[in-house]
């Protein structure tokens, strides 16, 4: 069920926020991570705002 939720979110370009927090804690422990909402907006912009937003026919 958790995997299904993660799959549906990634289908629209939203990766796991928990994985992001884990990454920040492990690699950049002194930096302040983005909040959940900031993370959501960052990913939204990355998916649709840039050149990477391609989809198939």
């Amino acid at each position, binding site marked *: 069920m958790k*995997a299904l*939720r*993660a*799959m*549906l*979110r*990634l*289908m*629209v*370009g*939203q*990766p*796991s926020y928990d*994985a*992001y*927090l*884990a*990454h*920040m804690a492990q*690699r950049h422990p002194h930096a302040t991570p983005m909040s*959940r*909402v900031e993370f*959501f*907006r*960052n*990913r*939204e*912009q*990355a*998916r*649709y*705002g*840039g*050149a*990477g*937003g*391609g*989809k*198939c*026919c």
Partner: protein
Amino acid sequence: MKHIPWILLAIVGAIGLAVLATSRGEPVNALWIVVAAVSCFLVAYRYYALYIARNVMRLDPLRATPAHTLADGLDYVATDKRVLFGHHFAAIAGAGPLVGPVLAAQMGYLPGTLWIIFGVVLAGAVQDFMVLFISMRRDGKSLGELVRLEMGPVAGTIALAGAFLIMVIILAVLALIVVRALAESPWGMFTVAATIPLALAMGVYTRWIRPGRIGEVSLLGFLGLIAAIVFGQNVAASPFWGPLFTFTPETLCWILIGYGALASILPVWLLLAPRDYLSTFLKIGAITALAIGIVVMAPDLRMPALTPFVDGGGPAWSGSLFPFLFITIACGAVSGFHALIASGTTPKLIGSEVDAPFIGYGAMLMEAFVAIMALVGASILDPGIYFAMNSPAAVLGSDPASAAQAVTTMGYPVSAETLAQTARDVGEHTIVSRTGGAPTLAVAMAEIFSHILGGTAMKAFWYHFAILFEALFILTAVDAGTRAGRFMLQDLIGLVVPSFRAGTSWVPGVVATGLCVASWGFFLYQGVTDPLGGVNTLWPVFGISNQMLAAVALMLATTVLFRMKQQRYAWVTAVPTVWLLICTLTAGSLKLVSADPAVGFLSHAARFAAAIEAGVVLAPAKSMAKMRAIVFNDRIDAALCAVFLAVVLSLLFFTIRTCLAALRADRPIVNESPAQMVPAE
């Protein structure tokens, strides 16, 4: 011992294929197609994908992927393989696998079925898998960068320019399908128009009210969609609102062009993102429902296995089985566009090299399954209805009586009453000459869904549900594609004028967006005003370009295998490359120089130009101005075909040159990122 279940599965698949191939005349159940396809796909996945992974690519579970070496928690994230499979599948599956097989059904169900099954196993899935592998070993670089890296800067630029042209054609043909589905259909038009305020409201909700709650907002949006479909019936019936939502194809074309320009400069969170949620989830849901529906209903196929149109002369599209079937079904069998996806976000998210077969090869098999379902959908309809929907108005006339007579003359007897009744059942004024594939599939989906839920009374609801589902994700693709095309164009122009690149000022962005919309808008307008319906002209050009991009991707893969000194396995990619080159080069040159005006653009132009000289107006044109437009459009299309041929031939030259250089070298010369071990957890 472990092979026994697989051998049994292979036997089941062979029986399925044998039943399909040998039945003539007697009713065949559609499940035979499904059984044959699924068994072939599973056996191919178990053996061929594994063979490629182990021997050709030599995937290494200990070698770190970009998600580990470049981990940033944002773009590069090691992701569970099932989650990533869903992401990749949602990105590759769109309107292509639904429309192509429906159009291909004019030759009967057998040729399309065989091409989808064998095409995906030997070409399509191999291409996706190889490009994913190549990109994964090179920090998740994009297709253009990969061609540049392995074959040189000139080849890279040619590939980028080719990809932009293909994007333009895809956007035009997708928009044309929407125009054909929504023209003169107030119910359909209202529901699709309603998605815009709905998406704007959802955008505001995710921005300020409950940021990030995708599930919640999608559910609310979905309820809105259902309400729009239900309410659309009243709108269509209303003497005031009905005509307000009834548009001619030309008006719709201009609306779409204006919409495309506007939508691609609005903030993404306002329109594009929320509509993408709706269209993605609706797409996955509708595909799942269709699969369940086909299995539960187990309908008989009513289209014959083969029709006389295998020799050419079909009403939906011109040309004989070879080479035109192989470009009509592009997505679903092999699609070059996937090379852009497989070198996009997916290689940056893959957690382990050994997940690549499941995601690269597996997701493409899944798309082929979608294509099989679309083919089944078109084939369970009465062939008379199928041809009445898919022939141009120039052949059918405009009313059910003339259409019924024309289709009966083709050899598929159907009564005017059947056509009128079918239109009434799905809540439309007419179904005659509703070309483009989407309405045909919608009638089939209405047939299947209403069999399970609601009966005949619900048919009109399900028809408009299906139209909405198709139109919604096509509009999302048009919007997202215009944005992507804009960046491609800025990169390309930036090669000559560096100040044109993204990020310098807003002027180049607006100019590039305008150019991009104008390019696809031109082909859309040409298709809409084409007296033969447009799909006839544009779909083959789209198919040729898409398959040529696939050939380019497979040539890149062949080059990489030579440079890895794995050339003894190069047949894995070289065989599909050669087949695609044969098909696309033949089809491209036929479109260019065939003496048959129904096939060749130049001979068609010559025929109309000669008539203009003589001062005669040829049907289906109605005026001299229309005649000149036809000649002009034909010449543009011919030039486009010539450009595609030049792109693919020049890349073939670069491939051969690079492969020969690799053969002469005494050691591997790949540009892979250095191998690192997966970090211990």
